[in-house]
């Protein structure tokens, strides 16, 4: 009798403990599966980014095929939000409240993530590794459930500022920037990097709307201001225009091109390689079209994965490398979380990545996070356009810009 009671009590205690352990896990987590949500623009004006969502799906397929993460399959539920913030709100709410996903991963876009920023933090659901470079995602004090991944735009501006101060300390800088969050972020970065000298060095600022047809008049204004350094903060279409216009005006400033638009395929070759020689830009990922990486192990692994799991993908599309890299980062964080897959622990492990080498990052760049540092990647390498490709030079530069709006 006593033995039976003891057994029953201990069984009950065990059941409660197991139940408690299970209950601690986030919704969407079972012994076999982790369900995660994602919003991505598969349609609409930003549909070019759809390859990111597809790459992540294909990458997770590979992990699932190899046994999953700590024995659990990852159920990646990715839905279209058409880059429309109200749609992102609906889809995110649906994923969190109806589908009961454990967390949201790599939601794409600054305005779209802004729309659910407060909601996710109120509901205490991780908004993890968002696909935007806006600086505001790295604010653990006010928004502890949100974290970016790619180096933020301000840090890139800082890197360019340091380069200019080191090579041309008396430069006169003219800035062309898109009149929105992204453009202003880049400008802030440059100003922060220049510090006290910002006011004296920046001689011209011209903005434009993403719906403007051309930016010719802005370029003329900048040239006429006497600038000898040109900070080009534009999206691909306008970047190509700017490169061509400079050439046409016979103006050859030191051309700093933001990384958003340094694609060989969609920008530089369209403008004409001969027109952009000597341009400076920055990178943090390996470009799949760069012949230097052909023999690198990480490239070979990426290439094999593309062949097997994402044959429809475009190997010249750098977004596939991006998706591959960020997906590995997620898996690393989940692996570290082990069997404690509560939302708190998932965030804690995401904020506990030390010197993690995500594949396809440039050699020397690693991911580092901490409870006060929600900027996983903060390093860049500068590169110069020589011939038909970007030639990286110099050391890996740290562009930590710190938090802020």
């Amino acid at each position, binding site marked *: 009798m006593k033995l039976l009671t003891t057994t029953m009590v201990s069984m009950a205690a065990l059941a409660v403990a197991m139940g408690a352990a299970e209950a601690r896990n986030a919704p969407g987590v079972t012994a076999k599966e982790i369900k995660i949500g994602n919003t991505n623009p598969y349609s609409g004006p930003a*549909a070019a980014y759809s390859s990111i969502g597809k790459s992540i799906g294909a990458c997770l397929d590979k992990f699932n095929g190899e046994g999953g993460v700590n024995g659990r399959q990852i159920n990646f539920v990715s839905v279209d939000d058409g880059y429309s*913030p109200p749609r992102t*709100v609906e889809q995110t709410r649906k994923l969190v409240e109806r589908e009961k996903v454990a967390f949201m991963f790599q939601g794409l876009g600054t305005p779209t993530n802004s*729309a659910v*920023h407060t909601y996710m933090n*109120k509901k205490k659901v991780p908004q993890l590794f968002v696909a935007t470079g806006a600086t505001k995602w790295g604010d653990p004090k006010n928004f502890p459930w949100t974290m970016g991944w790619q180096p933020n735009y301000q840090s890139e501006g800082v890197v360019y500022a340091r380069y200019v101060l080191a090579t041309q300390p008396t430069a006169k800088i003219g800035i062309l920037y898109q009149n929105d*969050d992204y453009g202003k972020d880049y400008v802030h970065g440059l100003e922060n990097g220049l510090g006290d000298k910002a006011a004296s060095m920046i001689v011209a600022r011209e903005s434009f709307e993403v719906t403007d047809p051309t930016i010719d008049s802005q370029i003329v204004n900048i040239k006429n201001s006497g600038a000898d350094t040109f900070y080009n903060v534009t999206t691909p279409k306008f970047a190509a225009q700017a490169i061509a216009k400079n050439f046409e005006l016979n103006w050859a400033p030191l051309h700093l091109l933001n990384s958003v638009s340094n694609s060989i395929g969609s920008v530089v070759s369209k403008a004409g390689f001969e027109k952009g020689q000597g341009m400076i830009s920055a990178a943090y990922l390996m470009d799949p079209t760069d012949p230097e990486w052909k023999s690198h192990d990480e490239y070979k692994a990426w290439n094999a994965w593309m062949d097997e799991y994402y044959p429809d993908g475009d190997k010249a599309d750098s977004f596939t490398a991006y998706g591959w890299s960020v997906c590995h980062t997620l898996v690393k964080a989940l692996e570290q979380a082990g069997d404690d897959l509560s939302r708190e622990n998932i965030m804690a492990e995401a904020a506990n990545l030390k010197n993690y080498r995500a594949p396809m990052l440039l050699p020397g760049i690693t991911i580092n996070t901490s409870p006060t540092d929600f900027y996983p990647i903060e390093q860049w390498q500068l590169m110069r356009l020589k011939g038909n490709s970007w030639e990286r030079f110099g050391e890996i530069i740290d562009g930590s810009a710190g938090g802020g709006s």
Partner: protein
Amino acid sequence: MASTDVAGNVPAFLNQNPKDRIIVLGVPLPLLEKVGLYALLAAVVVLPMVYDGYDIYEFGKILMYMLAVLGLNLLTGFNGQFSLGHSAFFAVGAYSTAIMMDQLGMPYWTTIIPAAAVCFVAGFLFGLPALRLDGLFLALATFALAIATPQLLKYDGISHLTGGVQGIVLDTPYPPAWIDSIVMSITGEELSVDRWKYMFTALVAVIMFAGAWNLVHSRTGRALIAIRDNPLSAKTMGINTSIFKSAAFGVSAMYTGVAGSLFAIMDEYLAPESFTFAEAIKFLVGGVVGGIASLFGAIFGGWFVLEIPNIADLAATSLENYINNPQGLTGLIYGLFLIFTVYVMPMGAAGLAQILVHKISTRR
């Protein structure tokens, strides 16, 4: 006294005492539609008791879109003025509420009436020069308004008010304490914010719907319909078409604008990208599919505006195996629905319901 249905015909079976009738869908069947109306009202009241969270939020959105489509119905269906630009008025209402809440610190429920007033004025001022334009040209003018709206919202000069590209984050619209305590004493649990958002939206929507119904069945309403059907005769009969047409624009903008206010309050965030031309198309397709000249059609239209992205998603996922990037075809879905409706049921779902009820009632 005989009354007409929205198409202007006098049905033959109409010889009942007017007091027994509520004219619903133009078919005066007292018992059936009284029951229907009360059932609808009952549903509106009961829903928050049954649903919570995302579900009740969706129902709230349906009512909100119903109001937006209702505005378009009043203008296009009842007054014959075509508008491709109602996303602009939607934005005016939403931003009026957002600015009042953000800059002036006004509580959300006090912003509805001022926002409605602002939108009425905006609509009226747009309607005045629009008097010179007809049909296609009015459509183009409203189209231009819709295209300009996101740009105007992003304009640097006013971005300290509008938040520019970053948009505005709004405070959560918590229920007032006295309502919370009533609900607490009845049900024993707290009133969730989602349920309260729905209740607030439902209250505004029902009141404004009743207002629209009264408008349409009054002398003013008949004047508006007369202007739609035959502007020359209307003028000859002494109706001041200019004032009525501008006022119609004002009222229409007011309805869609209040829907915008509710939208901002429900989502707690708004940004210029929410108010593109795509929204204007959604309202138009929703209006036509529901029944452009029908008030109750606006309910179906509202549901349609909410559901159509989901329908498009569904179509896209089922086509995934055949086409490479089917999500790009979502725009096609709107066009297909519009064409289908215009060919098969030009009076929309409401018209279809009307025909069905008529067939049932005459099958003696």
